């Protein structure tokens, strides 16, 4: 029973925190362009407005894919620890999260292809191609982390960084790997240089082109939850988790930093995205993995 309530609590926490942050991120983008920007709760208004609108369906696959994307993402979300707030103790394995996260992505892809719009197919194709790009460097860095800590548990890795204060964070023990993971995080969040899948000016929002009203509202919610998972993983793995409050503060800084970097960037073409990821971050990830394998944990030799 406590597991049930803490799962509900985690989902609510993710909803309120991430949706508020999305609104703040819109404000940050606006200030970057010397505008006032919308109020910080604008994202809530948008989501609730979408739920109050009518929407149409393009068949069973289209509806089912939306539910599958949202359900799969929420199922992934409750495995992600928020600092020391872990719903399933001992089960928060990195591999569980990686596999479950694919359900949300595939549900989205299935549903978008089911809408029959050619822009949607192009967008899905771009999304999956981009996935191919950022997964590889990210997985290599995380696997070398797992190799070193001898555990795949996210909260285990977060706790292992606690002892030495701020110098114990993987951010300082393996800066190369952190940079690679952050660049991958930009791709996962779909921030600017890597927002190829939903390029509104070229392919009319890509996968989202046929969604309207309630469907779009559910998918926006799914997107917010997916962002919570991705940033949460980064904070737990590289910034040392901490208590819930510390976790949320670190989360804030990582998310706003990603937004600000995205704000000053142009957009890559899809082939440039993959070529970039498979050149620089992959190389850095290999170097990081070799350092870890041959010298112990990262640069802990001199820390």
């Amino acid at each position, binding site marked *: 029973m406590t597991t049930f309530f803490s799962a509900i609590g985690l989902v609510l926490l993710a909803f309120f925190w991430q949706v508020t942050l999305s609104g703040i991120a819109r404000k940050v983008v606006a200030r970057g362009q010397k505008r006032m*920007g919308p109020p910080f709760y604008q994202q809530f208004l948008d989501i609730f407005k979408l739920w109050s609108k009518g929407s149409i369906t393009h068949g069973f696959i289209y509806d089912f894919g939306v539910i599958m994307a949202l359900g799969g993402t929420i199922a992934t979300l409750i495995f992600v620890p928020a600092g020391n707030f872990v719903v399933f103790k001992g089960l928060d394995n990195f591999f569980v999260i990686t596999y479950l996260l694919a359900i949300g992505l595939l549900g989205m892809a299935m549903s978008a292809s089911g809408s029959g719009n050619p822009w949607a197919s192009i967008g899905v194709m771009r999304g999956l191609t981009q996935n191919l790009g950022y997964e590889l460097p990210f997985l290599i860095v995380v696997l070398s982390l797992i190799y070193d800590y001898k555990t795949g548990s996210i909260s285990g890795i977060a706790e292992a960084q606690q002892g030495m204060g701020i110098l114990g964070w993987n951010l300082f023990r393996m800066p190369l790997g952190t940079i690679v993971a952050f660049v991958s995080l930009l791709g996962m969040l779909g921030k600017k240089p890597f927002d190829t899948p939903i390029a509104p000016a070229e392919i009319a929002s890509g996968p989202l082109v046929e969604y309207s009203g309630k469907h779009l509202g559910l998918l926006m919610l799914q997107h917010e939850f997916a962002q919570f998972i991705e940033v949460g993983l980064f904070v737990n793995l590289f910034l040392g988790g901490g208590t819930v409050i510390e976790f949320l503060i670190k989360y804030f800084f990582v998310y706003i930093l990603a937004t600000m970097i995205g704000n000053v960037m142009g957009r890559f073409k899809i082939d440039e995205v993959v070529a970039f990821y498979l050149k620089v971050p992959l190389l850095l990830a290999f170097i990081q993995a070799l350092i870890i394998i041959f010298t112990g944990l990262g640069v802990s030799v001199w820390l």
Partner: protein
Amino acid sequence: MALNENEKINEIDVNELDCRDTKTFWEKFGNIFRSKSLWMLHYCTGCGAIELPPTMTSRFDMERFGMGPMATPRQADVLLITGYLSVKTLRRVIYTYEQMQTPKYVVGFGSCTLNGGIYYDSYAVISRLDYYIPVDLYIAGCMPRPEAVMNGFRTLLDMINKGEAKGWKRYLKYNDWYKRNQIRALGEVYVKDEFHE
């Protein structure tokens, strides 16, 4: 397209409709959110479109009201007819309008959408927009300045909040009338639908 004077076009008064009786609690509740977040369709027809970039960017900053551009009609709430509408464009506007989801609003820019403006009596340009799609709000001017556009948007948001912007209900109720006017201007068209064949 100039209308045939012998045909009596306006035999019913479509603007008479009072939709207040169908305004339920949830509709009032939804109107609060709808009036604080309005997405416009990135679709431009005439000269008035040139006033939209300054309205969107730093100087006038339309995002303060929660308004933003959307790339596809499925996601948009408001359709801006920014000026004269040739008969060719009218067909696309009707397709676009019918793809939008139900609480949807139309704003007409400038005198061309009101009475034809300088294109009055042209063979290729329609002279009154609200014969073909229901218009909630007109913004005066040839062309309206960004201040006027912002003012118009504020008025529209207030109208939505009070439930007065009900053009989409009019379109549902008097669909025959609108369809007849559309066919009179455009002629019957055979739409080849390759996807569903």
